């Protein structure tokens, strides 16, 4: 985590400014690793689809596409809420009440998206051990659900930091990283929607 030199009480010269912090690099790499995991699941899904005799099998009911779409919309709203929180953190007035409210909204929206995702996968209940298609959809959904859960926890933790005065003044990497995670999660939910819509969703 980096902070500006003057906030450390250091007499650093002016050229020690404008850094892209290691924390941001770390977050970018972590999301890159998540992309590899998601990409591997997607590759497995496509590999199985290409090599299967029937994909998806007619007797299986796919995930509810409309519910997944709704989950993607709510996940996007959660991302927007963290963007707002980030903007408030870096606004001159550093309004903690607004930051806290935005983060709480992000957590709530993330939880709703998570719930919707679970509901959307309900048609596959009991079918995941019957066919690789159902298993693959459940795992893809589980991957996105895990991201949503991490986003909810992250928003709650940073909101708690705001309450105890660790976030908002001075600004740290936390809200920026949370924004990156929530945005990534919203995109991942959209990708799941695409797989559901074009790969046998009901």
């Amino acid at each position, binding site marked *: 985590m980096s902070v500006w030199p003057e906030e450390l009480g250091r007499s650093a010269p002016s050229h020690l400014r404008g850094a892209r912090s290691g924390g941001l690099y770390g977050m970018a790499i972590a999301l890159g690793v998540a992309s590899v995991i998601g990409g591997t699941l997607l590759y497995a899904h496509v590999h199985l689809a290409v*090599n299967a005799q029937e994909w998806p099998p007619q007797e299986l009911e796919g995930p509810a596409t409309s519910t997944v779409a709704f989950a993607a919309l709510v996940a996007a709203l959660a991302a927007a809420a963290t963007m707002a929180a980030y903007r408030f953190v870096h606004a001159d007035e550093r309004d903690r009440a607004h930051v806290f409210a935005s983060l709480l909204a992000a957590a709530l929206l993330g939880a709703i998206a998570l719930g919707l995702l679970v509901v959307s996968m309900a048609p596959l209940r009991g079918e995941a051990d019957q066919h690789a298609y159902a298993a693959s959809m459940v795992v893809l959904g589980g991957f996105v659900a895990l991201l949503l859960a991490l986003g909810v926890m992250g928003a709650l933790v940073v909101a708690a930091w705001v309450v105890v005065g660790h976030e908002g003044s001075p600004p740290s990497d936390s809200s920026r990283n949370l924004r990156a995670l929530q945005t990534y999660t919203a995109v991942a939910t959209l990708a799941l929607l695409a797989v559901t819509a074009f790969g046998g969703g009901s």
Partner: protein
Amino acid sequence: MTTEAVETADLPPEDRHDPVERRAALHGWDPELTRVWSAPPGLVGWLSAVNHKDIGRRFIWTSLAFLFLGGLQALVIRTQLAVPENDLVSAELYNQLFTMHGTTMMFLFVVPCLEGLAMFFAPLMIGARDMPFPRLNAFGYWAFLAGGLFVYASFFTGEVPDGGWFAYVPLTDTEFSPGRNMDFWLLGVTLVEVAGIVGALEIVVLVLKHKVPGMALHRMPLFVWSVLVMAAMMLVAFPVLLTASLLLELQRKLNLPFYDPSAGGDPLLWQHLFWIFGHPEVYIQFIPAAGIVSTVIPAFARRPIVGYRLVVAALVATGVASFGLWVHHMFATGIPFLALTFFTAASLLIAIPSGIQVFAWLATLWQGVVRWSTALWFVIGFVIIFVLGGITGVMVAVVPFNWQVHDSFFVVAHFHYVLIGGVVFPIFAGLHYWMPKLNGHLLDERIGRTTFWLMFVGFNVGFFPQHVLGFEGMPRRVYTYTEGDGWDLWNMVSSVGAFVLGLGFALFLVNVWVSRRRGELAGDDPWDAPTLEWSTTSPPAPYNFRVQPQVRDVSPRWHPADPEEDPELAAVLEELAEPYEGRRETVGTTTLDGQPNEVVLIATSSIWPFVVAIALVVALAAALYDLVVLGLVGLAVIVVGVVAWLWPGPARTEVP
């Protein structure tokens, strides 16, 4: 600052009972910086340590312990095969031994050892004070240790993994592997993979953000370049195996049929995913080993490496190309002809960047004024063995030849030539070269050279005959053979060689022990080497450098920067040498040209990474034995532990 060992009795009385003061005085370190950058005393302090040297050293010694366990398994294997129709071990135990041998060497020795070397030396070589996220670094070590012990715990339950280190399905599905054997493997290796990924993340951010001022990418030491490429590859390759392993575990535990063709799955999917990880894994091991070679040779040839930029390009090209070769492990699975052609061409292509490096090393030695040492002997041994392994690699890349020797002892010989010659010899070169920084003492040269010759002769006697055995049709992974097969002589020779090689490894341990007990104190720079790790004490202080250096050349010790060129920057660096409110601070720089652009706060010691790693292994054990409540407790501790780990300390003096 120089290393000046002083007797405790020489210290002022008030300093004799303070362990930090005593340590600082013994090594000539700055006492205040030492206090700020040291872990707390006692067992809790030891478990809380996050300093990159502590963690790197633990990675190195733990991985060497696993090397010796894996080596013992290899010796039992070779004893079993020394004579025909031997009944020393059963077929079942033999399967377990070769599985654990491969797993240990690939997952628990080579990569963790190289990561340990990277964690210890990369920050020193780029002038940093620590890794960017030291708590994550500590978590990586505990996760690695826990994962390794998790796999080895199977010996105590009698359910040792037995499906090979590649764990092919359907052999490893519940139908053919109904016990918990492969569950131990899948869950333990997953934990080790997680450790590898967090370590790789650390290394990438370290190299991109924490180089000292002036260290642009084109002035970075080759070892640092190599670990950067290694880490980037790990970030792409390891999550693939992690995902594939989780899918297989889901199939085994919950019957999700990803690899079951009767329910829409495909066993070949495992092979694809495994080798998308597995082939780059070989280069993940080779590339940093090549970086060690590129570090040792200039120091003993007493000149910069020939073709620095070409060598960097070769490292990067090797890393990129290695992701396009995985199918050459699957030539016998009925792949379409066009794919066979493509992957053959790609497999041949990768010999070019490797060749560039070999020529650069030879040219550096040719043009240098060579000073012989054990480290350099290991490098010479590496070049000879690796070139032989590379040639057989080109042979097995050719499809018709590959079909002939597939699953034979020829392949065993080939990959041991690549992995022992190409990786283990450079690691031993590095250990002989860098031991002064690890423990303050030089290794004994006479014992070192005896170690080298035992290993070199033992290795070649042990593994060269296996080429012949492969040509004569001996398959790999068979626990015995009959007298009439005609494989008796070469198997006996191979076994004798293996024991000589094992003697070499044991002698290395003796050398470390002797050097610790009564070895010559190394001083700061016993080799007159060009890179920054030799600018500090042996062993280095917890803060590495009192004043972080500036760099203007790829050999900063031979061509040091003049701090007066930029007095403003020199003043900042001098100011950072005075700890401010007990904070751990280091300078951050831009990625490409190493221009200073921030002061970075580094996390302090914390027990939470240890707690989270333990909770993680508890959760995995609960998954193994279907203990739902224990699993939930483990998950709850993980959540609480992570929040506590990330929670900022008072007044932001402590950062996560």
